[in-house]
């Protein structure tokens, strides 16, 4: 991946901040005061400085609406649009005033995210809520138009925007700002950045461990960081695997639990009917039946809460993918670096051979020379000169690639540390909320049972009274 020079095709907007230590162009957030001039992505301590978005702005995805329109192939389609409202919070009075409000659909969120992935390869970019409903159990619908799914997606999209807005680097991005403020023409604006051209070529998706150069190079620092990234990649694989397993089984548990509760509802029906003709036990049966109904219907709320918990875990399932993206980018840079180094080394060797006349490496030129006689000294000198030029260039390139790589590693690790802390906080909170849910479920459910027991006893004592 080459360093991205300021794109000449975007003369009208300030460029997004160069992520790789190039000259930082400050984001002019249309009228807002910016704090600090130079982006400093060294990590946590810049958070407060760069959180000017959150301090001053509230973002919410407040509504969802079904719409029909024409798609790219001019066919009618139905989709859901989401209303994004941005409010600025006044300094003095903390009153919020609606500053922007526009509608976006899911595909536009995807576009935004893809853009961020390309322009900030060293950042763990927050994930979007799932495109299609997965880990579905009996009662949940897999239909994207289902109101419950749409509602959960709305929350997920809001969460995404808040995550981006609270990220020290991403929050300053111009395109993100426009996403929130410029309804029409935003897509064209994004596409004009040409980010799609910069995204990874399809071929280099999975790399094997890099081939060692024949000539020793000082790549020890690189090797160390490679190890860190390898560990990170393993971690993200594990995280993804364990969370998907957990979500799958949780869905099955939910299904079964739903079954248990709902079958109890049948008791309710039978008891009620029975109370009609069993005069002596009538009231007791009626009451017991009622409580069974309450019990059976309590499961709906319980499982809805749990679905929210599942969504929290899902976010980190998708975050694992974002982590992997950063690792992959690192791999690519490594590959690029080592290829360049190898290339340089072999050129140097060639040069040396020509100068001294010894042949150590095989080359077609060398062979033909042997076969057809030595070349003239002038020819040799010319070749040496060319090579020396190339070597010079190559050394420059290698230097800058090394620098680039080091910057990348530094910035990436800063963000990864930030991410880790966020993850630990969030997951712990989610797990504890799970316990809280279990507790409230036990409390909620114990009472209908108690009431049913009391009713049954009452039924019995009525009998004895007769």
């Amino acid at each position: 991946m080459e360093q991205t020079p300021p794109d000449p095709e975007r003369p009208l907007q300030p460029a997004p901040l160069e992520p790789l230590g190039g000259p930082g162009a400050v984001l002019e957030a249309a009228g807002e005061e910016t704090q600090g001039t130079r982006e400093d992505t060294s990590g946590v301590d810049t958070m407060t400085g760069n959180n000017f978005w959150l301090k001053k702005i509230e973002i919410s995805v407040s509504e969802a609406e079904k719409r029909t329109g024409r798609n790219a192939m001019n066919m009618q389609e139905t989709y859901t649009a989401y209303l994004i409202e941005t409010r600025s919070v006044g300094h003095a009075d903390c009153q919020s005033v609606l500053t922007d409000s526009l509608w976006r659909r899911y595909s536009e969120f995807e576009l935004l995210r893809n853009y961020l992935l390309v322009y900030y390869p060293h950042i763990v970019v927050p994930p979007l809520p799932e495109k299609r409903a997965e880990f579905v159990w009996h009662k949940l619908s897999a239909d994207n138009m289902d109101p419950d799914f749409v509602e959960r997606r709305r929350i997920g999209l809001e969460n995404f925007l808040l995550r981006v807005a609270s990220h020290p680097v991403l929050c300053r991005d111009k395109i993100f700002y426009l996403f929130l403020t410029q309804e029409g023409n935003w897509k064209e604006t994004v596409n004009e950045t040409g980010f799609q051209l910069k995204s990874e070529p399809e071929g280099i998706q999975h790399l094997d461990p890099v081939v060692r150069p024949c000539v020793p190079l000082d790549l020890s620092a690189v090797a160390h960081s490679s190890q860190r990234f390898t560990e990170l990649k393993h971690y993200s694989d594990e995280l993804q695997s364990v969370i998907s397993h957990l979500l799958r089984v949780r869905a099955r548990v939910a299904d079964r639990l739903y079954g248990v509760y709902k079958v109890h509802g049948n008791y309710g029906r039978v008891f009620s009917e029975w109370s009609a003709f069993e005069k002596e036990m009538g009231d007791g049966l009626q009451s017991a039946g009622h409580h069974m109904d309450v019990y059976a219907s309590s499961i709906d709320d319980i499982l809805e809460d749990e679905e929210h918990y599942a969504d929290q875990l899902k976010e980190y399932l998708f975050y694992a993918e974002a982590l992997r993206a950063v690792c992959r980018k690192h791999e690519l840079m490594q590959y690029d670096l080592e290829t360049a180094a190898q290339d340089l080394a072999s050129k140097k060797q060639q040069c040396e051979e020509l100068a001294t006349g010894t042949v150590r490496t095989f080359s077609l030129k060398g062979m033909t020379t042997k076969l057809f006689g030595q070349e003239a000294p002038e020819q040799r000198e010319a070749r040496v000169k060319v090579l020396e030029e190339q070597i010079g260039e190559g050394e420059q390139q290698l230097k800058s690639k090394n620098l680039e790589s080091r910057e990348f590693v530094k910035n990436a690790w800063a963000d990864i540390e930030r991410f880790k802390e966020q993850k630990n906080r969030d997951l712990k909170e989610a797990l504890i909320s799970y316990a809280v849910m279990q507790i409230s479920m036990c409390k909620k459910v114990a009472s209908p049972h108690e009431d049913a027991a009391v009713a049954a006893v009452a039924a019995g004592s009525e009998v004895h009274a007769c």
Partner: protein
Amino acid sequence: MEGERLASGSSELAVGESPRGGAPIPGGSGSCSLLQADVLDLDEDEDDLEVFSKDASLMDMNSFSPMMPTSPLSMINQVKFEDEQDLKDLFITVDAPESHVTTIETFITYRIITKTSRGEFDSSEFEVRRRYQDFLWLKGRLEEAHPTLIIPPLPEKFIVKGMVERFNDDFIETRRKALHKFLNRIADHPTLTFNEDFKVFLTAQAWELSSYKKQGPGLLSRMGQTVRAVASSMRGVRNRPDEFTEMNNFIETFSQKINLIDKISQRIYKEERDYLDEMKEYGPIHTVWSASEEDLVDTLKGIASCIDQCCKATEKRMSGLSEVLLPVVHEYVLYSEMLMGVMKRRDQIQTELDSKVEALTYRKADADLLTEEIGKLEDKVECANNALKADWERWKQKMQNDLKSAFTDTAEENIRYYEQCLATWESFLTSQTDLPLEEDSEDKI
């Protein structure tokens, strides 16, 4: 002679059930394979549950219950003191099933131990072995002798299409418990307990019993009775007294309801078992996760442990279900069929009378003979009706008590379950939210 009398014994004693308030010790997952011919539809839109084929219904319970007393003496500790003042002087246990293999067949026998202080018994203690067929014989004899008494139900014969394991452990254990109940209910019945065939059943050695069986009314006469019964039931009874019509209606509705409850209860058991299976997989995932998250180890392991404890509580709850509720409900399903048979027999006796009376109006020739027969039949009808009325009240009382206590026990078991889960999760939560305080104090040190 040992006097095994109790201050206030109970004819309501259902030996073998767990004492009130006690919970069976949670067992491991036994080889529970609940068979159902149809699957209940969970759709709430349906007004009725799908018809459940009785022949295929196998009550396959969790058999890990140590509550089964091994000797009549231990039953004394389990007596529930009820209002009736009957003194119990006949104690029966059914246990120790054994398999017997002959060239023709394989069958199971059960050991029956009887302890009694009654004079008419030659001894105070008896031990015999009986097979299911013998129980069937006994039931048939009791029905013949007391056609309008409510004979306790026998567990079903095992008729399942294509099923090979006739002698699976759970099935045998369930049957054994039901047979035990059967004999004890007879012993508790004020009339049946003195039945001669019953006595022979409890005391005679195997060969004695065989020869005794042959003495009964022959095959042909039994067939004749059956034919008459079928004929009269097809004619239908005309003058059924109101109270018996009411009784009949009650029985029909009761039968319908209890069958539904039986289906529901079994379905709940199955759903809970499936739920338990999934939970058992769910908990450990958190432990696996904790291996890759250094900062979340305590939280994750804590959750895994809570889920594990809830699983144990679920197992306990389920075995409570299978020990208490399911057997009782199922027994009353069988009772309801029994009751319909009783009603039929009563009707049949009345029909005999009615047809003779009718004959009298048309055939004056045999007037004297017919009148005499009618007289006898009128007595018979009156006896039958009174016997049934008395037994009916007794049965209804018992039914209400049994069902009430079964449901109450189940509800209490459920409450215990939720209380236990609540405690588990609350203690976890406390440990998690106290933690930051601990860390702070460490920093200060």
